[in-house]
């Protein structure tokens, strides 16, 4: 696990987001710069203060520096997959903690909606079904993989579509309170069940929203953070694990083994477990992922996530308010990045009508073939 003494040694000092939606004429780099400028303004730093840079979904770090004048000592680019957002934040934290740079900018830009990015069909190149080997059987898309996983969960534990509906309905309820969310009209359980199937048993509302947008975060040392405009949010625990060799097919255990490892490590590093959290940010590419995450990280016993969400646990005011921005299902699919920003905004008390009262500690979690988690604290 990451060394315990790294707990609290890095802080998020600036966050920035663009508008989300259909933004024709904006390249991934443009969207990243828009978000970066907002993040810099947020903490009162300038581009010259940035000595570390990791871009994600932006294809070329070199071109990005030519476009921005950023002149980092430490630079990297990570693959444009949602599972990589948490992992990228961890790399940045390690670089700061190790002194390879002092102030690192994480910049994400995604023009996928305008660019017509599709996760199913001939352009399917993410996840289990990439490469076209199964297209002749009609198999494609991460959504269909998650549909099969939910079907398995239903088979093994009796989880019902009525329970699953609570995830999408609750996150839409949160999005209604978030002016940045793309989908803000409340939906009922009836609306959910009446919506069309995409890959049955999953409905339209179980799928994340592909949109254009950008997100940026600025991380630095707690010492440097003291002089900056906004209160720092500290990374108290972080870890990752994976289940890659068998990732050509959905996992038998809903990624429970790697999630269990990560849960243990972040708890040991931070001293914080599920009971200590004010809220959770859960990677919700598809709503069943939320159920798998709740079980894998020990928020409820294995097989009981359906009942847990049906009790209203994830709602504001519930046992574990989650994805208060609306998440990927209703705010926008910013591949984990905007969920990490929402964690920071909650801990600063910036969230207006969707604020978790007295939020002190929030955990981000991503269940996928690469699992990651980050515990953020005021």
């Amino acid at each position, binding site marked *: 696990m990451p060394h315990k003494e790294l707990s609290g040694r890095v802080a998020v000092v600036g966050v920035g987001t663009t508008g989300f939606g259909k933004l024709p004429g904006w390249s991934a780099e443009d969207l990243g710069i828009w978000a970066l400028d907002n993040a810099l303004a947020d903490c009162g730093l300038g581009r010259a203060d940035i000595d570390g840079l990791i871009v994600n979904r932006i294809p070329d770090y070199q071109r990005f520096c030519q476009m921005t004048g950023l002149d980092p000592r430490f630079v990297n680019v990570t693959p444009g997959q949602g599972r990589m957002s948490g992992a990228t934040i961890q790399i940045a934290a390690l670089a700061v903690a190790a002194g390879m740079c002092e102030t690192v900018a994480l910049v994400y830009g995604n023009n996928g909606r305008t660019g017509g990015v599709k996760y199913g069909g001939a352009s399917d190149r993410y996840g289990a079904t990439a490469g076209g080997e199964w297209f*002749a059987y009609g198999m494609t898309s991460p959504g*269909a993989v998650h549909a099969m996983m939910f079907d398995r969960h239903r088979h093994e534990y009796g989880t019902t579509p009525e329970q699953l509906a609570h995830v999408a309905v609750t996150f839409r309820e949160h999005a209604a309170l978030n002016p940045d969310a793309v989908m803000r009209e409340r939906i009922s359980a009836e609306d959910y069940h009446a919506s*069309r*199937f*995409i*890959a049955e048993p999953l409905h339209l509302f179980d799928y994340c929203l592909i949109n254009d947008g950008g997100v940026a975060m600025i991380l630095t040392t707690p010492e440097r953070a003291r002089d900056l405009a906004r209160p720092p949010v500290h990374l108290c625990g972080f870890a990752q694990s994976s289940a890659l060799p068998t990732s050509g097919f959905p996992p038998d255990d809903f990624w429970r083994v790697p999630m269990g490892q990560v849960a243990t490590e972040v708890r040991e590093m931070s001293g914080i477990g599920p009971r200590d959290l004010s809220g959770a940010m859960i990677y919700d590419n598809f709503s069943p992922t939320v159920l798998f995450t709740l079980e894998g990280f020990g928020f409820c016993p294995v097989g009981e996530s359906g009942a847990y969400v049906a009790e209203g646990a994830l709602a504001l005011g519930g046992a574990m308010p989650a994805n208060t921005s609306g998440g990927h299902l209703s705010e926008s699919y910013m591949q984990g990045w905007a969920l990490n920003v929402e964690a920071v905004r909650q801990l600063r008390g910036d969230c207006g009508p969707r604020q978790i009262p007295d939020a002190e500690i929030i955990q981000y979690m991503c269940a996928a073939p690469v699992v990651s988690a980050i515990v953020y604290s005021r």
Partner: protein
Amino acid sequence: MADIAALLPPADETNRPYREALKDGRLCLPRCDACGEFRLRASRYCPSCGGTSSRWEELSGSGRLWGRCVFHQVYFEAFRDRVPYGVVIVELEEGVRVFSNLADGIDTMQVPIGTALAAVYEPVSDEVTLLRFRPA
């Protein structure tokens, strides 16, 4: 049906024996000489043990239904007239998994997870036969 066949990536040395065997109504996959594990396509190194020697062997064609879903969304023009259609994961007796379909006329969601299945070989063009399954 030729349009479905066109969705297969071009045949190459990693998959040609598999595809040719399907046309003869047999299921053949590469098997590692060192550890005995089957894999889905030929490769220089065995993913399980790193062994460099393997041969094509025939499998039983028996397996169990691991997972199911039904596509309502049209992702491929070739499937526009076929939605809704089922896709399944079958775990073969020998341990390998494949994405597949149940044979024509079987309602996928009516076949429970865990059901014993047997291979059926369904030609979709002169050149291509697909590996599908029916309850054993």
